[in-house]
């Protein structure tokens, strides 16, 4: 979910679905609702206006669940850190299991992060 990204990270997350990266061949796919999710992929510095939505999305995801924070903003707010409108990192709102750095991370970096998560959890 997008918690206030500049949409750059979304573009590369989208690319995971193209036929080059083809996320589904690893048994991973995007679902339409947190109720169907095992992993929450969260982007953005978490805006103050999205904090509650992030918390509620997390709560709506059935356990066991994992949170992957994507992008430099999601770590600590990135270039937006310090703003009155930004909480400053996903971990300030929900527990984070993995952070994938980059601005934005490339699809390759996203894939290797997700595959690493799969290995540690299975």
């Amino acid at each position, binding site marked *: 979910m997008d918690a*206030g990204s500049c949409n750059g990270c979304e573009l590369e997350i*989208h*690319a995971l*679905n193209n036929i080059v990266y083809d996320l589904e061949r690893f048994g991973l796919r*995007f679902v339409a609702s947190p109720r169907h999710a095992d992993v929450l992929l969260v982007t953005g510095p978490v805006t103050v206006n999205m904090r509650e939505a992030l918390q509620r999305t997390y709560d709506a995801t059935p356990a066991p669940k994992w949170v992957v924070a994507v992008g430099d903003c999601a770590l600590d707010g990135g270039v937006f850190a310090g*703003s009155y*409108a930004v909480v400053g990192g996903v971990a300030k709102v929900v527990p984070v299991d993995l952070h994938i750095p980059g601005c934005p991370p490339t699809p390759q970096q996203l894939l290797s992060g997700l595959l690493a998560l799969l290995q540690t959890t299975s």
Partner: protein
Amino acid sequence: MHAFATILGDDKAVLQPDHRPWPRYQVDEAAWIRAAHAMRNGVCTLVGYWGEAKQVHLALATASYDALCVLSLACPEGHFPSIALVHLPAARLERTIADLFHLRARGAADLRPWLDHGRWAAGVGAAPAGSAYAFLPVEGESLHQIPVGPVHAGIIEPGHFRFTACGETVVRLEERLGYVHKGIERLMAGASLAKAARLAGRISGDSTVAYAIAFAGAIEAATATRVPPRAQWLRGLMAELERIANHLGDIGAICNDAAFSVMLAHCGLLREQVLRAAEACFGHRLMMDRVVPGGVATDLTDAGAVHIEALIGEIRRCLPPLISLYDNAASLQDRTVGTGFLRPELATRFGCGGVVGRASGRAIDVRRRPSYPPYDQLAFDVPVLMQGDVNARVWIRIREVECSLALMTQMLRRLPAGPLATTIAAGDNAGSPQEGMALVEGFRGDILVWVRLNPDGSIDRCHPRDPSWFQWPLLETVIDGNIVADFPLCNKSFNCSYSGHDL
């Protein structure tokens, strides 16, 4: 200057020194109201409207964009005459001015907060904490409401859509935005040029190149900096790569929302090839931070030029079969033709730029007019259609991809040699602060950036205006009378930016 003579009146408007390249006038309320009427009458177009402490600014263009100016009105009492009262497209901008600068638009019909959700720290916004947003009432028999968002089912940005439907048919849509407001304008105030440039490149990541060019352009205008020709041409190349990548992505995504996923697969592959070329040539898939004030940060090598040539050839080879696939798939055409019709007069009234405007007859492309290098030295078409439906917006994108390929070919052939950047001579201006403005055609439409520099060369005030400001309100109108299931199609065919709008 005389393009705006009737608005300015005979004597009261005061021309401000050091505002470039277009003039800025300090005006009184009478001129301010004349400007509102000039916009309503279609003599002028609203291209920007922003606030700061005790002052509001209005950027205007003539209908053909051959002249622009900025009008500034002091509001020491904290209020000013509403433009929206006369010219509706100003409404959300006025609500934003109230949210961020606590300046009230006198007479405005809609005083609800916009970006401010009542959640920021005390004293920042104007909205009362914890108050529920008052959606506009909808009355009638057999109506039901469908609230959607801010968290969506797809990988898209957050925003809330409140549909009122009668059976399957949408009778009203009301948007609520502001979820991704990051406070970028305040972060920019006082920031160094380098920090502000990084922020500008992250206002809307999909338009990072266009924003970086607009920001750099405003700084260069303010400081009367002459950018080396090679840098201008490399900026053009990057801007067209960005445009092609986005248009390809959008064409595929629109078709996918009509359950025609094979187009998405093909277009997605082409888009990936564009991004890989960008990475190979400029060192970043989205080309973030490659345009900097004063020039560009990366040169194009000979090998890079060959890579782009090959990319152009590949897209030229792959695109025609995709176009005929699109054009000959009856089930796809059934969804896109006639869907989400935007009336040309509304596109014009709202100053709606980009693909959305040009698919509804609005022949404005700021690369053409007022223009900027390198486009002032290049030949290119500005495709325009009158149909105004989802299909027309797909076709404009297809035509613009072809135009961009032709532009890139010209640029590669004529790319001048020389330095990549020059230093910004900021702050050596003893008198009034240096101010500049730039208008740049991103893939989504015209991006405006206005800046004022501090004497030490840092940013005093920067206002970036995304093209989405004048497109989002129109999305509400095009869905009227369409079925709920066609909303994703309409929405994708507009592809407005949430982040660019929410700032």
